[in-house]
């Protein structure tokens, strides 16, 4: 799907040991599998089922997502920054597609 676009908001810099807030949103219909089309046939489920956030290769936060999460899944969580580095965000789709995004953070 070309329409899937991840968006992430991470502060540009933080002081060592600071807990920062990260906001992510990915445009995705999150088809629940409960809806029916005009002819009464069920529309197959297609959702983002997993999200992971890593910092310099170590997992910071992850979640298992079910169809009850709204379309364009929005996630807000925190991370403790001890060093400068790169946040890597990964979304996994039911169809096997993987969407990723990276953000740098510096220490001030």
């Amino acid at each position, binding site marked *: 799907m070309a329409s899937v676009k991840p968006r992430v908001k991470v502060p540009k810099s933080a002081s060592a040991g600071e*807990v*920062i807030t990260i906001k992510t949103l990915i445009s995705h219909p999150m088809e*629940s599998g*409960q*809806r*029916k089309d005009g002819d009464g046939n069920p529309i197959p489920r297609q959702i983002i089922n997993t999200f992971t956030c890593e*910092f310099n290769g*170590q*997992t*910071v*936060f*992850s*979640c*298992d*997502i*079910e*169809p*009850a*999460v*709204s*379309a364009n*899944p*929005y*996630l*807000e*969580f*925190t*991370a*403790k920054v001890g060093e400068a580095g790169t946040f890597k965000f990964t979304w996994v789709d039911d169809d096997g597609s993987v969407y990723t995004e990276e953000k740098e953070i510096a220490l001030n």
Partner: protein
Amino acid sequence: MTITRRSMLTLSVGAAIGVVAGMRSGPASATAEDAMAKVMEFAGGTEPATGTITLDAPEIAENGNTVPVSVSVESPMTADDYVESVAIYADGNPSPDVITFNFTPMSGEASATTRMRLAKTQNVIAVAKTSTGQVFMDKKEVKVTIGGCGG
């Protein structure tokens, strides 16, 4: 059999009843028992305590398609004592599972926010599990004006 006016009438009434009955059987809904069974499964046999965890959701949600929900758990979030995961369940949706957040000591705080779908007015339940084996639970009723599960 010849179709008389009377038999035609009974046929069409029967068909109409059939259609209405068919329409009523929408998506099956989970019950409070299903949701509690999920909570107990997640807790792994430990009786959930109240407090420490805060679930924040609106009292009245106008649109069940996007209901903001956030959880936060008081925890030192150190390597020996941190919140491992928080699961959210909704007892009136077709399936009670909503989302499971997995934290690490690198999360800094055990708090997260997302947006969920609610099919109707129901209870939203959040359960937290810590690395020391403690389980905490919070519950909140959300009134839904327009359901969000499509039909």
